[in-house]
């Protein structure tokens, strides 16, 4: 749901400047009517599959309901206020902030750097690197989670490598450690989104007019100045896409956590999506689950709107 909201906002941003069309003539009006008619089946499906459940979720979020029973109790805003009063639920938002650094900030910074280096050096085999770094995007997240669960195991490759380097003091039970489990999961996110950001930025850089780079060089700009004055401004559109998608990915983190730690140790890696799943399917409290879903959707929407607004500002 939240994903759909974000994508819709993105699509909205992308088509914000359609070529002006005359809308007043009878022919144009007829065309528009035919267009609406053609779109009607799709809109109807969208209304039933997306909009109606959305409205239902909002409705459920004001009730205490186990999902099966014929009786439900109106509880007003209690399910939303739990974000402030329930320490476990409010902590999930803190965990998302940590994940944001790993899912969004680090991959975007690294992606920009990689794009700058790769496009500048134009070394042979660049396509191979791109392919390798993009691979995580193609893999199913369940596969990724299982692979990393093994990597982080007490006798797994990560600890074995540390031991081989004589760094025994750094070995730990990555996924069972109250301090390190969340960053360890975050690094998986970095690994997944980095390649996506890089490929996006490389394609963006290739669209920047070479004259701009030449002009910058004529003006005596070094690689750093060139990066900040030409490359980054030229990638504004791609940055908006990257930020929106990685931020919503961090907000929605579920499968990685569910397969590796189930939110543990304690509640150290519990995310809103995990709390939602537990409330909806494990410990039936559908109202609470709906409230969490609505909060996640609103956050995703707000972020998408803010990012598109900023990126479109001249």
């Amino acid at each position, binding site marked *: 749901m939240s994903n759909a909201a974000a994508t819709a906002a993105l699509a909205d941003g992308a088509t914000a400047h359609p070529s*002006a069309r005359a*809308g*007043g003539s009878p022919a144009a009006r007829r065309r528009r009517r035919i267009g609406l008619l053609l779109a009607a089946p799709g809109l109807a499906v969208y209304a039933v599959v997306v909009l109606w459940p959305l*409205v*239902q979720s*909002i*409705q*459920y979020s004001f*009730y*205490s*309901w*186990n*999902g*099966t*029973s*014929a*009786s*439900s*109790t*109106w509880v007003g805003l209690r399910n939303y206020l739990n974000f402030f009063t329930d320490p476990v639920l409010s902590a999930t938002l803190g965990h998302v902030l940590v994940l944001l650094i790993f899912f969004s900030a680090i991959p975007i910074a690294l992606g920009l750097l990689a794009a700058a280096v790769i496009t500048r050096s134009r070394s042979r085999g660049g396509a191979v690197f791109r392919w390798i770094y993009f691979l995580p995007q193609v893999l199913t997240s369940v596969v990724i989670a299982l692979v990393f*669960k093994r990597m*982080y*195991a*007490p*006798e797994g490759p990560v600890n074995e490598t540390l031991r081989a380097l004589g760094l025994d003091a750094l070995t*730990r*039970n*990555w*996924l*069972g*450690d*109250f301090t390190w489990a969340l960053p360890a999961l975050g690094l998986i996110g970095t690994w997944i989104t980095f390649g996506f950001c890089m490929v996006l930025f490389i394609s963006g850089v290739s669209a920047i007019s070479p004259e701009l780079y030449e002009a910058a060089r004529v003006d005596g700009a070094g690689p750093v100045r060139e990066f900040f004055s030409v490359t980054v401004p030229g990638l504004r559109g791609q940055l908006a896409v990257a930020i929106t998608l990685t931020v919503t990915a961090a907000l929605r983190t579920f499968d990685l956590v569910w397969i590796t*730690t*189930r*939110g*543990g*140790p*304690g*509640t150290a890696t519990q995310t809103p999506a995990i709390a939602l799943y*537990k409330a909806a*399917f*494990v*410990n*039936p*409290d*559908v*109202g609470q689950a709906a409230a969490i879903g609505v909060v996640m959707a609103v956050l995703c929407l707000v972020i998408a709107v803010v990012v598109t607004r900023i990126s479109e500002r001249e």
Partner: protein
Amino acid sequence: MKAQKNRSIHRVGTVACAALVLGLAACAPGGGGSGATTSTAPSDVSTDVAAAGDVTLKLSDFWKSAEGEWIDNRIAAFEDLYPNVTIKRTQEEWTQLVSTLNLQLQDASGPDIASANNGWQSLGTLAEANLVLNLDPYAELYGWNESVPNTIARQNQFTTDFSAIGEGSWFATPVARATLTGLYYNVEKLEALGLDVPTTLPELETAAAAAAAAGEVPFSYSGLDGNTAMLFSLQAVFGTATDINDFIYGDPEVTAAQSKLTEAAATMVTWADNGWLSPDFEGLDSQTTLASFLDGDGVFRFDYTGTLGLTGDQLDEFGYIQLPQESGSGTVGVGAAPAAMVIASKTEHPDVAAAFLDFLMSEESAQAAIDLGMVPMLHNDLDTPSTGRSLNEEIAAAASLNADDGYVPYFDWSSPTMLDTVSQNLQLMLAGRVAPEDLTAAVDADRDAFLAQLGS
């Protein structure tokens, strides 16, 4: 022009949304029909299956491998007995079945009989929503109140106002098989260490110390998924069956401390501090430690019967102990039927369905369980297999629990969130972040919050 159009579209959207929200506010979720939640109990019941004519029943369950063979075997035997009955079985994944049963039972073409989970989350919500039959008339007809031990019968009962679990009307039946929680041991390891099979908790601790001194891992344990088998097995050694049952069934007079949860938790902390649990257990999951236990890593392991999946030679390589009460009087153990069998309210043949449930509790069905290598329940004096140490010891454990009426249900039936609460606090406790008393307090708080919600 464009801006104006947008505005009018917005206005239409806003009005439509407002209308929707207002419309929805009028009806609360779940309020499809009458608000009353009176349970349906069939009035005119009969044991005469042959008279029902040609009947086809649909059964949904989650049983695979040996358990799947058992139910297939039982269906075939029932169909032999009553050639007019056909039972169509659908096997589904456990979590899938439990999470969709509420929808399946509402469906006109859904199952007539299904395996639900006990406790509030599954059976409780299904019964309260009137999706499954109140089986009291059949309990009377077939004499279940006399033939089923009270501690097992309670696991399937709720009061008809759904304010209490563990008493009231039958909404499900057990089957003649049990899943117990107890202690497995590696026969060869104990012999190599020159140790006898421990029969009490102090003997177990002596053996564990000796195993540790010899460089063995005394207890195979996983912390990554918050494994609770050890905690609840120890609780059954310290607490009485009455206290543990009463706590789980929501008697506000009994606290978690009275059910001896603190003692069990403290014992685990001692064992962890002694280094008796699998090294690096914090980062290991159940599957991994189970595989290494079967490969000879670890002398003891608390687990659920059936989880080890022992076959062939392994049946003699491992043994099973149901530790007796610390007080010395009898044996208490976490045990239940592997499912709560329910009859859909919408079924057209409740008499035939009830006859099948009764058949699943029969002595013949218990014997079929043994013959397929599983633990029987509800009946003693069955033919036991000549080989297979672990199976024979599991059967003996079930017999002693039957004799002592010493079954206690799974602890997480006490509230929908209990399993999470216990798992999370176990991890916190073994990491030294909370004390055993804090775990007990968190458990009390969880259950009290749920009881308050029930009362409201």
